[in-house]
């Protein structure tokens, strides 16, 4: 299904928001003491989260991984609260206890975000099981990387999900690297989508820099899941334009490769398409970008002005 104008706009907005949000984070984390911990950003991969989430309803669950800002913002998380969480402030989505690596936003059904590579995949089988068990009209989407597809958890979870026809979409964001290991240095297969066959599950390769294609594939897989036909594995081919974290200088990523992929950046692509097709004017685009800049500035202000949690907070939320 081709995305409507509204959907295209929604995707463009979340992509721009994610990019702007993360550019800001990258800037801030250079200031000592400002943003603690690692900065794992999805620059270049924004079309995946945006395309997927545009195809979902509020009730649908997503299980993000360590590279989650795009997932969260596309699912509708509040930028200020996500930013505050990255800062470790009490007003953050998780009271500052999580930090950037495992932000969960249950309000928008972004659940169980985990930084254990592959850890979200069996959990997604579990949330989808609950959706089926209680006959909800919703599904689960699990985001993970190409590296995660080598973990045992991937295998066990996909087998189980297929066996029980669980309403879940496994979205592999193949950004060509798992840490410093290039795709062909961590597995012999070219397309991770081919692994779906090992579980009698449909698998599909999608251009992960084409938000519309990601959207369309997700819509199809979601319909399948809701119809009780079980899970789908969607591999989105994309690229990690930055290092793994803020301190990774990409020495192992060929310059030309980075440049070539920057050419394929999903943002100018969608923006260009929309302008070319007359779905949006330059003026509207400027206004949108300005609005997003403001949103992110506001998010940063909110995060900066928020207090750190009181030490007593360390002891809450361990148990109910």
């Amino acid at each position, binding site marked *: 299904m081709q995305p409507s104008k509204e959907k295209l706009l929604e995707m463009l907005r979340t992509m721009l928001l994610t990019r702007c949000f993360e550019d800001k984070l990258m800037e801030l984390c250079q200031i000592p003491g400002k943003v603690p911990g690692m900065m794992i950003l999805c620059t270049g991969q924004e079309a995946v989260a945006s395309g997927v989430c545009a195809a979902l309803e509020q009730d649908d*669950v997503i*299980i993000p991984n360590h590279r989650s800002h795009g997932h969260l913002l596309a699912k509708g998380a509040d930028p200020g609260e996500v930013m505050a969480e990255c800062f470790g402030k009490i007003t*953050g*989505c*998780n*009271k*500052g*206890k*999580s930090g950037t690596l*495992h932000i*969960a936003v*249950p*309000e928008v059904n972004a*659940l*169980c*975000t*985990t930084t*254990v590579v592959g*850890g979200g*995949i*069996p*959990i*997604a*089988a*579990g*949330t*989808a*099981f*609950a*959706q089926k*068990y*209680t006959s909800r009209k919703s599904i*689960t989407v699990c985001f993970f990387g190409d590296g995660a597809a080598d973990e*045992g*958890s991937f295998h*066990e*979870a996909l*087998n*189980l999900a297929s*066996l*029980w026809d669980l309403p879940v979409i496994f979205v592999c964001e193949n950004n060509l690297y798992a840490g410093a290991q290039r795709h062909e240095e961590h597995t012999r297969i070219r397309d991770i989508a081919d692994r779906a066959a090992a579980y009698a599950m449909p698998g599909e390769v999608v251009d992960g820099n084409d938000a519309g294609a990601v959207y369309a594939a997700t819509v199809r897989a979601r319909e399948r899941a809701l119809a009780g036909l079980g899970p789908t594995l969607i591999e989105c081919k994309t690229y990690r334009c930055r290092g793994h974290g803020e301190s990774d200088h990409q020495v192992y990523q060929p310059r030309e490769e980075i440049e070539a992929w920057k050419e394929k950046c999903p943002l100018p692509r969608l923006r260009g398409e929309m302008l070319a097709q007359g779905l949006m004017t330059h003026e509207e685009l400027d206004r949108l970008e300005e609005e997003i800049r403001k949103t992110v500035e506001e998010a940063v202000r909110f995060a900066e002005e928020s207090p750190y949690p009181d030490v007593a907070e360390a002891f*809450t*939320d*361990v*148990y*109910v």
Partner: protein
Amino acid sequence: MQQLTMGQAVNQALREEMLRDFNVFIAGEGVGVSIHDNPLMPTAGLLKDFGPERVKDTPVSEAAIAGLAVGSSVMGLRPVVEIMFNPFVTIASDMIVNHAAKLRYLSGGKSTFPLVVRMKSGAGFGAGCQHSHNLEAWMAHCPGLKVVMPGTPADAKGLLKSAIRDDNPVVFIEDMMLYFIPGPVPEEEYTIPIGKADVKRVGSDVSIVSWSKMVGVALKGAQILAENGVDAEVVDLRTLLPLDRETLLTSVRKTGRLVVLHEATRTGGFAGEICAIVAEDALNSLKAPFRRVTGPDIPVPFSPPLERFYIPDENNLVEAVLGIM
């Protein structure tokens, strides 16, 4: 009162909770169709009575089983999943320890994980060290989990019902040997609170602290000790996490002597925690050095005389107690 084995008591608890709450379901390898057509096993008959929607046989995939529990519980279900034997919890331990135990904290208290992981433990079946390896100390070292290890059928039933109703992840460890020993279980509906120890025998000379199958050994030992003029108190912890410090300390303050008895290997075993607490908070009351009676620091051997030697018995206990009287 009805006489049930622990397997039957667990079965009753599962049955009652599944009847009470549709959100409760069970899953695991052979929890429905089983290689044991034995009515004493904990999940016997449940498939027949609750159907395959609520009694889920799984592939041999421990990580997925535990992940199923994590994901379904955050959605409001109350999964009771089974890891067949304690050492296989290793494969599920990322899900249990890094996810079930931590995701609530990581969510800032927004998500809850009301799940139960049941597993069989204990030596004595000639299955060797990859089946018999008590790892309760691992689980009890993980904040965010609760760890329950009942020693009697009645405790098992009441505690499992509490575990299922608890909004936190609970690891529930059943010693297989207890599946085959009957004991009294109340007919009427009841629960037993998690986190409360039980003084199974009142005494004044020494506190024997134990849990699970070893509670029976402790009681046998106390009997022999009584014949030798030593009046032992037997404290059944029942829950390792959260620990009932109150009951523990009250007992040791009274008797002045501490012997901890567990089947797990000694070094790094949970007896250390008991000793530390007492040595921190009741040192003044002590009349004698502590003793730990535990499995030796070896993998559980297969050969019958060696396996018997591995499992602590009442004689080991009596000897240890008499040594500090």
